[in-house]
């Protein structure tokens, strides 16, 4: 449960740093750095982000990303020149995996950028205003939760056409519901606390209470949820493109690479196993980091 962060720290930690404002940040860092899984998660996430940002400089053969064919170099197994081997038209798989992270992270940023503000806004309103606002918003959320997200995304990309843009839309359409639920439950317990009542008595506007009093206390829960979400958005995006309903070739997408590579199983296993491992690696990183942040911020019921 997210409570205003003014809890007392263990005495030895408080003594180690002088000012109270630093103390909180330091305390969090102290707890975080002593949680091995969280640190591993953070390292993995940083690697993935670095790959996405600096792909042209990191990738061994940047010219082989999309429209490149070299039939002499087809189906080469992993070697010193091609760590992850080459694919069915002779492109370096490692290069495409590194560029693939760009697509995955772009998907994460857009989906979460669209759905978090929307979901948080609705959750704040439902939790604080109560009454019919609460009933309408929460019932809508319940209905939206009854549709399996991947099935919904499949249906939407089916009626639109399969590409990155529509995959983003299709995933975002339902993603906000989880944030609405989370923020709703936090807000509902927060609104009876004294600092909210005090603001109300002082005549603060509704907007002020929603965004200046309630929202800051949801930030840690949102950041934990967003980190865990990042992994699941990558997962669902990869599932979509695995089925041929997401990003279309020749754009280097990890799910598509697994699907195309699967045609050459079992002998040329690296073409699907390596991109698959790359997806697993990224999701694992975001999950470990999310779990670590959850322990650090002490927000237990975020899942």
């Amino acid at each position, binding site marked *: 449960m997210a409570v205003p962060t003014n809890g007392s720290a263990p005495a030895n930690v408080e003594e180690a740093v002088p000012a109270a404002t630093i103390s909180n940040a330091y305390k969090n860092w102290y707890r975080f750095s002593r949680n091995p899984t969280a640190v591993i998660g953070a390292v993995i996430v940083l690697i993935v982000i670095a790959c996405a940002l600096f792909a042209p400089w990191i990738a061994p053969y940047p010219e082989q990303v999309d429209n490149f064919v070299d039939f002499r170099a087809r189906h080469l197994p992993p070697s010193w020149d091609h760590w992850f081997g080459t694919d069915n038209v002779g492109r370096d798989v490692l290069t495409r995996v590194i560029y693939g992270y760009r697509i995955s992270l772009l998907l994460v940023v857009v989906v979460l950028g669209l759905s978090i503000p929307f979901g948080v806004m609705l959750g704040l309103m439902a939790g604080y205003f109560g009454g019919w606002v609460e009933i309408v918003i929460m019932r809508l959320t319940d209905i*939206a939760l009854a*549709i399996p997200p991947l099935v919904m995304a499949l249906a939407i*990309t089916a009626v639109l056409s399969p590409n990155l843009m529509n995959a983003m839309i299709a995933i975002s359409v339902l993603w906000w519901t989880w944030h609405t639920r989370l923020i709703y439950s936090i807000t509902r317990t927060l609104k009876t606390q004294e600092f909210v009542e005090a603001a109300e008595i002082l005549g603060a506007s509704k907007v002020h209470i929603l965004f200046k009093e309630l929202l800051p206390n949801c930030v840690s829960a949102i950041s934990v949820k967003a980190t865990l979400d990042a992994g699941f958005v990558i997962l*669902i995006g990869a599932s979509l493109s695995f089925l041929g309903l997401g990003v279309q070739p020749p754009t280097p997408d990890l799910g598509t690479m697994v699907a195309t590579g699967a045609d050459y199983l079992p002998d040329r296993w690296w073409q699907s196993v390596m991109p*698959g491992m790359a*997806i*697993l690696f990224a999701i694992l990183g975001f999950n470990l980091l999310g779990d670590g942040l959850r322990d650090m911020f002490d927000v237990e019921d975020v899942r």
Partner: protein
Amino acid sequence: MEFLYFLARRLLWSILVLVGLSIIIFTIARIVPGDPARIALGPLATQEQVAALQAEMGLDRPIHSQYLGYVGGLLQGDLGQSLLTQRSVNEDIGDTFAATFELVVATVIVSMIIGVPAGVMAARNKDGWLDNSSRFIALLGVVTPAFFLAILLQLLAGYVLDILPVTNRMPAGTDFRADITGLMVVDTMLKGRFDLTVEALRHLLLPTIALSAATIGQIMRITRSSMIDVSRQDYIESSRAFGIPARIRTFKYMLRPSFVPPLTILGLEFASLIGNAFVVEMVFGWPGMASYGVRTILQKDLNAVMGVVMVSGLFFVFVNLLIDVLVGYVDPRVRIRGTR
């Protein structure tokens, strides 16, 4: 009596959700850029042919009347005609649903009988090596994409070890129709073909593992944490003081209240489980509703897609209703709260 009241409320709510679901599905089907009739007939059809099909599909009527027509069809269990198979969507889904149902039921059973005991064991050995290793395995289960796990299983069990079949529900050329319940495993037993039951189970094994990995992980984690929460309760503390043996304490006093969170999680997880069924069925060539769904989606077969989404939602709502009733049964507090 109070339980009946709880049940009635819950049932009413499920119906409301389904109405909402039908509106959402209908809206999506109508935001198609372009004309469903044109998509169905292809670019070579004449304007007259398109207009005729529009009239036949009711696309020339006002939108609310179209929706009422759609719901009217739904209530009679009519999902329209599939463009891909040229049969009614009901028949198509009727033929394929049993295979998906069998896979999903197997997955739920496996998830519960592995996830709950693993969670209990981890909680009893909190922070020991057993706890840490099972938590690590649970984490791997949660983060591995179902389609990737499916491929790895095919590689390992079907090729490297060569011990299990990797596609379909039965060996090719088997002369057997599951026409009693539609569930291969059950029907082979009912007809006394126990040799085929073994085959059915062998075919079911890999898809079930691929589909259940994530659910097992989630259930194990939640069982573990709820067992630990319960073990800190006062009544457990006093039962310890009274000298009640650890085994009885664990299984009699701690397990029942700890059973509620895994059930609830199973309900929520069921959504992603149905979603994952779509990819797992594709990989294993499982002739179920989900692979029918993917095939029709790729063909833009709108009626079939709407039907598959609706049935998936119905399945989800029904399972959650069932789980809520179970939770109400296991935990009396829930059904009492439900009546207020």
